[in-house]
């Protein structure tokens, strides 16, 4: 099978993003919490790979550490969505056309009616801005996404013959869902996870940008952009580099997810190309 170029690019970008963040746990070129006013607003140089910000902090180091924030928030938000969404979707599929199915799918529609950022704003208005509230706000919207994808995929598995033989063998709906349905739709869910993960990174950046995400001094890509906004006329690199980092991370994860979906579902590939 021919592996598409987009998928390879996605793998490379995602891998770089991951490595950069893991390395930052052990080593970064410069301290990010130490201010060094003498070195402020330096352009890119050998010493400061991408230059320094208005407090003399190394931009590259801040981007590396900011990746930790993005990954943590987005990953937990995806986990929240999976933990609640997948069982709900399995339940809805197992009890097809029952009151449960109806109830779950209708509440999904209701959650979709809320603009996600508006809910995030409400949550932060009530509980104050923090990383945890950003995770909750993003996570809530992952629940209906996973419930819907799980239900859709599970329904098609339920019609297959081997499920019928599992029924004849005396297995109940719960056991069939866990032992047969879930393993068969897992790859699809992981692909969806990678797409929600990249959306989570974008959402976290947006929330931090408007001051509703992680709070200083924790570096975050979104807040770096917010800080750079007043200096954009004389220090555009402060705004450009965090933006490019976000784009590459999100692009990488999207290409990875799309590519994986095409590889997993050759039927889809034939239809589209």
């Amino acid at each position, binding site marked *: 099978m021919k592996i598409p170029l*987009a998928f390879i690019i996605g793998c490379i970008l995602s891998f770089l993003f991951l490595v950069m963040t893991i390395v930052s746990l052990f080593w970064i070129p410069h301290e990010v919490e130490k201010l060094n006013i003498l070195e402020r607003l330096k352009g890119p140089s050998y010493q400061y790979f991408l230059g320094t910000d208005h407090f003399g902090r190394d931009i590259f180091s801040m981007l590396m550490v900011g990746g930790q924030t993005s990954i943590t928030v987005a990953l937990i938000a995806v986990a929240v969505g999976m933990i609640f969404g997948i069982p709900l979707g399995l339940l809805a599929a197992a009890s097809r056309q029952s009151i449960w199915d109806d109830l779950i799918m*209708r509440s999904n*529609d*209701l959650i*979709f*009616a*809320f*603009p*996600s*950022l*508006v809910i995030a*704003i*409400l*949550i*932060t*208005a*009530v509980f104050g801005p923090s990383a945890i509230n950003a995770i909750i706000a993003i996570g809530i919207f992952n629940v209906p996404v996973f419930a819907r994808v799980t239900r859709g995929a599970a329904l098609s598995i339920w019609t297959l013959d081997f499920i019928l033989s599992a029924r004849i063998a005396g297995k109940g709906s719960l056991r069939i869902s866990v032992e047969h349905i879930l393993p068969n739709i897992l790859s699809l869910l992981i692909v969806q996870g990678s797409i929600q993960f*990249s959306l989570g990174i*974008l959402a976290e*950046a*947006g929330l931090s*940008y*408007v001051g509703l995400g992680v709070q200083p001094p924790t570096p975050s890509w*979104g807040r770096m*952009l917010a800080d*750079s*906004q007043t200096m*954009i*006329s004389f220090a*555009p690199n402060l*705004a*450009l580099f*965090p*933006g490019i980092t*976000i*784009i*590459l991370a*999100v*692009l990488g994860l*999207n*290409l990875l997810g799309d590519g994986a979906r095409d590889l997993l579902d050759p039927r889809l590939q034939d*239809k*589209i*190309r």
Partner: protein
Amino acid sequence: MFSYVFSRMRVLILSLLFASFIIFMMIEIIPGDPASFMLGINAEPETIQALKKELGLDVSKFQRYLDWITGMLAGDFGVSYTYRVPVSELVLSRLGVSIPLALYAILLSTIIALPVGLFAAANHGGVRDWSVMGFTQLGIAIPNFWFAMVLVLIFSIYLKWFSAGGVPGWEKGILLNLKALTLPAFALALPQASILARVMRSAIIDTLSQDYFRTARASGLTYAQAIFKHAFRNALIPVLTIIGLQFSFLIAGAIIIENVFFLPGLGRLIFQGIVQRDLIVVESVVMLLVFAVVLVNFLVDMAYLVVDPRLRGNK
């Protein structure tokens, strides 16, 4: 057809009830009451009591919820705690920015996305298709507020074509205001247009393998004619669905973009409300935004009736 309209209306009303309940409950969790917040820590208990009565806060929670909902239905959103003016007045003055911005952005994204999607689908599998798909992937990955900053850097700071923020006000003329909203609208439209173009492309490609498309070709229509006459109209249904779904993202994006460009819209009103603990403003504006999203989705459902004659049947 009537049962279809009726069932959509039931969804509309249920969504609004659910949303209002959630919003009200969340605002209720916030500790402290607005009356003592407004009067400061040295206020006499009697004064606080009197203000509570004036603001309608001295009744039960359930009564307040009812008052809030019935008030909103009558166009009365309560009185802002900090400005001491009716919230409806604040909202009305902000709508003059938010509604044109949203419409402008939707218009831009549709005008860009539909031809681009059609172009990619007509050339699908080719180099042109691949480059369009590449650009849309990029468009989806770009955070709109960052794109907004780049637009400001290029068009306001270097080229000096547009101002970096604010609106002149509608009394100064329509064109000046539209010009001021151009950069924000482009920033909002970019991710939307990218997604829409992809949906348009795959919707058209889906119709290409349908029997009616082959029939249309067999009856002597050229490829282009068949696409415009048959594929385009059938592709409109998924495209409409996505435009409806995107409206919610557009609202969210607008809140951020208004902050980038210092536009006095609803988004900035919410943020001011949060900073000043003006919760009645936050509560009402959030409800209004949810209403806008639910209403647009209802309108999209109604638009299906126009696009899809099958729904107009007796059922």
